[in-house]
């Protein structure tokens, strides 16, 4: 797999959903688009830097770059920078665009066309916006977004699951 293609396509789909959200919410002024563009690209840069640090510090073996991580982190940094400029209105668009992107990928690979329902997506959105407000004790950030979808992807039927003792993650 081509890792750069994974990232490029992931952020392209995020951008498409973001554009739809901005149109839907009538947030189409030249100034908004300029600021969204700047925030979108600087957030991709931050997410890239974070990815490199993440792989080094966790000593990760990269089979391939993981699109749930790259999109989750990009969305978080994007929502953070848009929130600084505009508060929740436009940050919320970014969050919903990100969740739609991740949910679309989830639906492709989860069994039986499964994905997160609207109520759960709304809850995740609310938790992210709480974190930005800031009401961190009621919030989740970049890794929380990732693990919501990673966990959903990893769900197995209890019939297929063989319980095993958990390994300690301590060094």
């Amino acid at each position, binding site marked *: *797999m081509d*890792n*750069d*293609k*994974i*990232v*490029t*396509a*992931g*952020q*392209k*789909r*995020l*951008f*498409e959903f973001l554009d739809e959200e901005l149109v839907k919410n009538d947030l189409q002024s030249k100034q908004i*688009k*300029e600021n*969204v*563009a*700047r925030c*979108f*690209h*600087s957030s*991709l*840069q931050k997410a*890239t*830097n974070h*990815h*490199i*640090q993440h*792989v*080094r*510090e*966790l*000593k*990760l*073996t*990269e*089979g*391939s*770059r*993981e*699109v*749930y*991580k790259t999109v989750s982190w990009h969305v978080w940094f994007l929502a953070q920078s848009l929130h600084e400029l505009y508060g929740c209105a436009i940050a919320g668009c970014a969050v919903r665009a990100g969740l739609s992107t991740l949910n679309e*990928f989830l639906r*492709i*690979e989860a069994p039986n066309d499964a994905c997160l329902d609207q109520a759960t997506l709304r809850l995740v959105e609310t938790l992210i916006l709480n974190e930005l407000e800031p009401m961190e004790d009621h919030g989740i950030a970049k890794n929380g977004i990732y693990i919501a979808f990673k966990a959903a992807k990893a769900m197995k039927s209890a019939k297929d699951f063989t319980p095993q003792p958990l*390994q300690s*993650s*301590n*060094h």
Partner: protein
Amino acid sequence: MTEVIQEYRPATLDEVKDLYRQAKARFEKEEIRQHPHVPAGLTNSTSEEVYAELLKILER
């Protein structure tokens, strides 16, 4: 730090490649900042099904 793109569009494949190249170069010589808890054998991966969809997104 690279100059941030100002255009209202997603990044291109070449721009993404550049970001990773620069980030790798930037952090290569830095000390590891921290040693987080991590389970053995942790890997990154995107599934074949999602990868196929990502290629379609890139082509359109």
